[in-house]
């Protein structure tokens, strides 16, 4: 199920229209930050919660307040916070890796994310909107995340960060944009369908023999 992992509905586009446009571009689901669960035009709307907290305790409190069935993303920050962020229960993805300082999302955080099955969100909005040095910095961060992803194997999810239906990008455009920092087509497909597997409740351990 191709899913856009981050859409904001506080812009010029209603949630229903955003879902319609996403369907026209080839998505089956969208994560709407602040939105409500539903289905419009054949696109499943998954409510999303984006948490920005100064420390892990505050983050944990906010995670507990998230409604059931919501896709929870936690904004990354400094190195120490990032290391514990990946281990917090209830977090589906870590966002804002492009805003972190260099090496703030390090191999320890990457390994924890891989062990816990927590994804790292790659946001396309800064690639689309920024120019010059700012965009180069984002490309460097994402390329660095890919190095860690190849090593530790944590999941990736891709979000457009769209606040308007004009900010949505088709999967083909997403693949082309991700090619700029080295994510191949298979990686893009896996990342676009990553939300579904992250949202699926983990089955309890079953003893076969």
């Amino acid at each position, binding site marked *: 199920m191709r899913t856009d992992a981050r859409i904001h509905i506080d812009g010029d586009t*209603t949630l229903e229209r955003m879902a*319609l446009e996403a369907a026209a571009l080839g998505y089956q689901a969208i994560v709407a930050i602040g939105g409500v669960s539903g289905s419009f035009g054949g696109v499943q709307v998954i409510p999303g919660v984006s948490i920005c907290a100064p420390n892990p305790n505050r983050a944990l409190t906010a995670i507990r307040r998230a409604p059931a069935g919501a896709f929870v993303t936690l904004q990354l920050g400094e190195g120490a916070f990032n290391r514990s962020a990946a281990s917090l229960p209830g977090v589906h993805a870590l966002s804002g890796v492009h805003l972190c300082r260099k090496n703030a999302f390090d191999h320890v955080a990457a390994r924890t994310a891989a062990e816990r099955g927590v994804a790292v969100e790659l946001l*396309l909005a800064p690639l689309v*909107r920024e120019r010059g040095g700012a965009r180069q910095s984002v490309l460097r961060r994402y390329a660095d995340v890919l190095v860690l992803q190849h090593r530790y194997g944590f999941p990736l999810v891709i979000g457009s960060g769209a606040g308007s*239906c*004009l900010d949505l*990008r088709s999967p083909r*455009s997403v693949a*082309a944009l991700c*090619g700029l920092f080295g994510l191949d087509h298979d990686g893009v497909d896996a990342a676009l369908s990553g939300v579904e597997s992250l949202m699926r409740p983990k089955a309890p351990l079953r003893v076969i023999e």
Partner: protein
Amino acid sequence: MKPRPPTLRQDRRYLLVRIAPSLVRLEGKPLYLAIGEAVTALFGDQGAARIDQAVVMVISGYAVVRCRRGEEERLIAALATVTEVEGQRVALHPRATSGTIRSLRDRIVPVPEPVYLGGDGSEESPRRLRIGAERVDAIVHDYKGENVLRFETIHPEDR
């Protein structure tokens, strides 16, 4: 000037691009300049020269953009970074790639003509235009006299 024989010509690829929102009517030249700026910002002058992009035509909500063969992905990446043409917010969505313009013409799905639903364009009563069966674009003239678009869906009872 004598034209080059076909074997010596550069191989080209043509991209069919849908222009959103459908209310926007673009000319070829501003679109060419916006795409050129996006390509240069992303790949530099050398990359732009290699991609060799050009807008071949703009027809009814679509544009056909040309590039050198093998550079389609880079052109699509650059098209994804175009957010504005002549001050108007737009999005360019690639629909198909082909070696001929003729085959792209067959892929064009006509954009429905907007139907005026009412409103005078003020904040209280935006000018509402119905696009197809479900979409409604509302236009509001802001205090600067510029048009601000809002994207909505038609109410189920009004369908």
